[in-house]
C-alpha cells in the first residue's frame, strides 16, 4: 500500500496539536494528526484546572506572557463558533496580609505590562460581596475580569472535530517511535505503520523532548513531569464560588484554587509534585489531604464530603520556564511546540496562530480552503439534549425518538446523544470517550446506573459483543466473560 503523504503532520492531539490542526484546516492543505492515545486529549489537556488565565502570572516579555493574553482574548470567539462551554467568570487572587498585598500589586503591575485589561485590587468588603464564602481572614484580592473557564477536553474535541470535518486525518493509537528525514520529507513511524510529511509540528506535551531526540535534536531544557491532583464536587455545591479563586502565588507556583466549572460543579486543586513517570496520573491519599487543606484556606466551610470524583494531570514543566515554539535548529520544516505548561490551555489559540506563522515563514504556502465549514460537523455543532431549549428538544425528539430515551439520569444524557457521539467525525468507541463527549456517567452516581446501558449502545453501534467494550484502552475491558 502506498504511504499516505501530507503537507503537515502534527504529533500529539492535545490542545496544542488540535488547535493547530483547527487553524491549518482553514487552508487548502493535507494535514494529519498522530496521537498515541485512543482519543483526543489523552495527556495534560484531559486533566487540568480548566482556567482561561487572564495573563498576569507570566513574566513580562516572555512568550508565555504574549501568547496567554492573546489566547485569552481569542477564546470567546472560538468557543462561540464551535459551541463550547466557556464562561468569563473572572478570577480573584486573595491575600491575607501586607506581604500578600505587595505581591498582588506586583502581579497587577505585571499584568498591565502584559496587556491584561481591567485588573483591580479589591478591598475585603468588595471581595466578600463578590464571594461571601471566602475566608474571613482574606484582606485583599486582585480581580481579573477577563479570566474565564472552559471545558478543556470539550474544547479539544471541538477544534479536532472541526478540523476533521474540513479534511484533517486523525490517527489514534499511533505512538510515534521513529522519524526519518531525507532532506525533503519526513517519514514518521509507529511500529509498522508510517506516514510522510513535508512539515512536522511536535506537540507531544510531556514527550516533546523524546520526539525531538528522534531527529537528533536536543531541546535546550528538560521537561519535568509535575503532577497536579484534583477533587471535583457535586453540583449541589456548584454555587459556593462564582469566580476562580487563587491564593497569592509563592515560589511553588499558583497554588491550590477553588473554581466553578462550566458544567456547574466545583473543582478543587491542584498540588504540584514531581513524579517519576510522565504517565503517572494516579491520585494519592497525601495529595488529596494536601488539596483539602489548601481549599480550606480559601474557603473554610467548603463541603469536601460532596466530592464525586478525584483525578490528576501531569504538567510538562520546562526547566527554562517559558514556552519553546520554534523551528528545529537541526532539521528544516520541523517545528517544536514544547514546554507548553500552564497556561497552555488559555494560550492555545494564540500558540496555534504562532505555529501557523512559523510554518508560513518556513515557506509553506497557504491558500484559503474553499468550502470551509465553520462548525464542528457538517450538521452544525451538535448540541446535547441537556443543552437544548424546550423547542430544540421537541424538534430533536420529533426527528429521532432516541432523543426521548434517557440513559444517564444524573446528567440528562439521552440515547440520541450517545449515538451521535459514537458517529461524530472522531468516533467515540469506549465508555470514557462517550463519557467525556456527552457527560454520561459524570454525575453524582459516576456511571453506577448507566454504564451498562452505554456499553450496550456502543456494542450495538459498533457491531461488537458487550464483553468487548472497553473503558478507555485496549486492555480495559469492562466485563470478564459470561456468567455460568
Amino acid at each position, binding site marked *: 500500500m502506498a504511504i499516505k503523504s501530507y503537507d503537515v503532520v502534527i504529533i500529539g492531539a492535545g490542545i496544542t496539536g488540535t488547535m493547530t490542526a483547527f487553524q491549518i484546516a482553514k487552508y487548502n492543505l493535507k494535514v494529519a494528526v498522530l496521537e498515541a492515545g485512543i482519543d483526543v486529549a489523552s495527556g495534560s489537556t484531559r486533566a487540568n484546572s480548566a482556567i482561561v488565565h487572564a495573563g498576569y502570572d507570566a513574566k513580562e516579555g516572555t512568550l508565555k506572557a504574549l501568547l496567554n493574553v492573546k489566547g485569552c482574548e481569542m477564546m470567546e470567539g472560538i468557543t462561540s463558533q464551535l459551541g463550547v462551554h466557556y464562561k468569563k467568570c473572572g478570577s480573584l487572587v486573595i491575600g491575607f496580609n501586607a506581604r500578600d498585598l505587595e505581591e498582588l500589586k506586583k502581579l497587577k503591575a505585571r499584568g498591565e505590562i502584559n496587556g491584561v485589561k481591567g485588573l483591580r485590587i479589591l478591598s475585603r468588603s468588595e471581595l466578600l460581596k463578590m464571594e461571601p464564602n471566602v475566608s474571613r481572614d482574606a484582606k485583599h484580592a486582585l480581580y481579573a475580569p477577563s479570566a474565564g473557564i472552559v471545558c478543556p477536553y470539550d474544547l479539544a474535541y471541538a477544534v479536532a472535530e472541526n478540523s476533521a470535518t474540513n479534511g484533517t486525518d486523525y490517527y489514534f493509537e499511533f505512538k510515534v517511535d521513529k522519524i526519518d528525514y531525507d532532506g525533503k520529507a519526513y517519514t514518521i513511524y509507529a511500529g509498522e505503520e508510517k506516514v510522510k510529511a513535508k512539515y512536522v509540528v511536535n506537540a507531544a506535551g510531556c514527550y516533546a523532548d523524546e520526539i525531538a531526540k528522534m531527529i537528533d535534536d536536543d531541546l535546550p531544557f528538560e521537561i519535568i513531569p509535575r503532577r497536579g491532583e484534583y*477533587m471535583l464536587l457535586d453540583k449541589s455545591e456548584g454555587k459556593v464560588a462564582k469566580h476562580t479563586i487563587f491564593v497569592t502565588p509563592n515560589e511553588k507556583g499558583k497554588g491550590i484554587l477553588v473554581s466553578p466549572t462550566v458544567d456547574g460543579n466545583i473543582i478543587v486543586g491542584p498540588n504540584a509534585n514531581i513524579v517519576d513517570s510522565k*504517565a503517572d*496520573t*494516579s*491520585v*494519592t*491519599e*497525601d*495529595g*488529596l489531604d494536601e488539596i483539602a487543606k489548601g481549599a480550606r484556606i480559601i474557603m473554610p466551610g467548603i463541603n469536601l*464530603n460532596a*466530592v*464525586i*470524583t*478525584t*483525578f490528576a494531570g501531569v504538567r510538562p514543566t520546562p526547566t527554562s520556564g517559558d514556552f519553546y515554539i520554534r523551528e528545529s535548529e537541526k532539521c528544516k520544516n520541523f517545528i517544536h511546540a514544547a514546554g507548553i505548561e500552564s497556561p497552555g490551555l488559555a494560550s492555545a489559540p494564540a500558540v496555534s496562530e504562532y505555529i501557523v506563522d512559523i510554518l508560513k515563514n518556513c515557506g509553506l504556502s497557504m491558500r484559503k480552503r474553499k468550502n470551509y465549514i465553520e462548525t464542528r460537523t457538517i450538521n452544525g455543532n451538535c448540541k446535547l439534549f441537556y443543552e437544548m431549549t424546550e423547542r430544540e*428538544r*421537541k424538534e430533536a*425528539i*420529533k426527528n429521532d*425518538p*432516541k*432523543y*426521548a*430515551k*434517557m440513559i444517564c*439520569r*444524573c446528567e*440528562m444524557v*439521552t440515547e440520541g446523544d450517545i449515538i451521535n457521539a459514537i458517529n461524530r467525525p472522531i468516533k467515540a468507541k469506549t465508555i470514557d470517550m462517550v463519557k467525556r463527549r456527552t457527560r454520561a456517567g459524570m454525575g*453524582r*452516581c*459516576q*456511571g*453506577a*446506573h448507566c*454504564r*451498562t446501558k452505554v456499553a*450496550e449502545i456502543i456494542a450495538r453501534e459498533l457491531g461488537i459483543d*458487550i*464483553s468487548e467494550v*472497553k*473503558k*478507555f*484502552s*485496549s*486492555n*480495559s*475491558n*469492562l*466485563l*470478564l*466473560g*459470561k*456468567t*455460568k
Partner: protein
Amino acid sequence: MNKKLVIIGSGPSGLVCAMTAVKNGISASNILVLEREGELGGTLNQCIHNGFLKNLTGTELASNLIKAVKKLGVECRTESCVLSLSADRVLTVISPSQGYQKIKADAVIIATGCREQSRGVLSIGGTRPAGVLSAGAAQRYINIEGYMPGKKTVVIGSTDIAFIVSRRLAIEGAKVITVVEPKSAPLSDKKNIKDCLRPFNIPFQLNHNVTKIYGKERIEAVDICQLDKKGKPIKKTKQKIECDSLVYSCGYTPDVDIAIEAGMRIKRDTKGPFTKRNYETTIPGVFVTGNAHYIHKNIDKILKESVVTAESVAKFLQKANQPKKEKKNEDNAHIDRKNQE
C-alpha cells in the same frame, strides 16, 4: 393531557400506590404510572434472591405487583422519563413512543427510589482503571446482562447489597477475596453475614478499608489497611492484594433531582423531601413515598408507607373536589416520627 393522579416510578412503592389509590376510589383511568426504564418493577427486577415479603424473590414480587396493577386497568408507561415538575404540577415527560409531552396532574406521587452513592471510594488513592464498580452495577451485570464484572473480587461495604452481591459472585464462580468495612459494626443485619458470607468462606473484616488501587488499564491489586479508632489507616498493617475487580457499596440517597429542581424543601439528614404528616411535600398536591422519601430498612416498611401515602392522596383529591373547602394544610413543623427511623 390531564390526569387526576400521576405516579412517578414503578418500583414496589409506585405500584402499591397505584393499587391503593384505586381501592380508595380514584378511578383507574384517572391514574398514570410513569417509568423511566424499559420495564416496570424498579430495582426489584435485579433482585433474584429470596427474602421479599414472606419468601418471594424480588422478581416474583415485582411480577405479582405488576399483574395486580394491570388487572385494575391502570395505565403504566415505560421508557417515559419525567424531566421536570412545576409548582402547579405540570410534568414534562419524554418517551420514544409519545415524544415530548406536558401532563397536568391534580396530585403527584414521587416514587423514584434511590441511587447508590459513590462517595466513600473516592478518597482512595491510586489509579482509575476499569473493574471498579458499585454493587448495584455489579448486580445488574450479573443478573440482567449475564456477564461477570470480575473473577477475583474485593468488596468494600457492609450493606445488604454488598453481602448479597458477594454471594452472587461466589455462586457464579468468582473468588471473593474479602469484604471490608471501614466502620466498627456492619450496616446490615448480622444474619446476612451468616447467610451470604459464611457458606462461601468469604472473610469479613471490620475496621478495614482499601487505601490504594493499582493497575493502569484493568485493576490489578489493592492495598488493604486496618484503621485506627479515628478511622486513619495503620500503615504497618498494609497488605497488597491481587484482584481483578473492586465492588463498593457506600449506601444510598433518595433519587429526587426532580423534587430539588421543583424547589421542594429537602431534609438535611435524609436527603429526601421534607413532608407533612400526610406525606405531602412542600409543594401542595405533590407527595413522596418509598426510598425517594428516605432510605427504608426493608421492603415491608416501604409497602406499608406507600399504602398510607396513597390513602392520604385519595383524601387530598376528595377535598380538592369539594368546591370551596380548599385543602387546609396540616401543621408544617410537625414531622412524622416514622420518617426518621
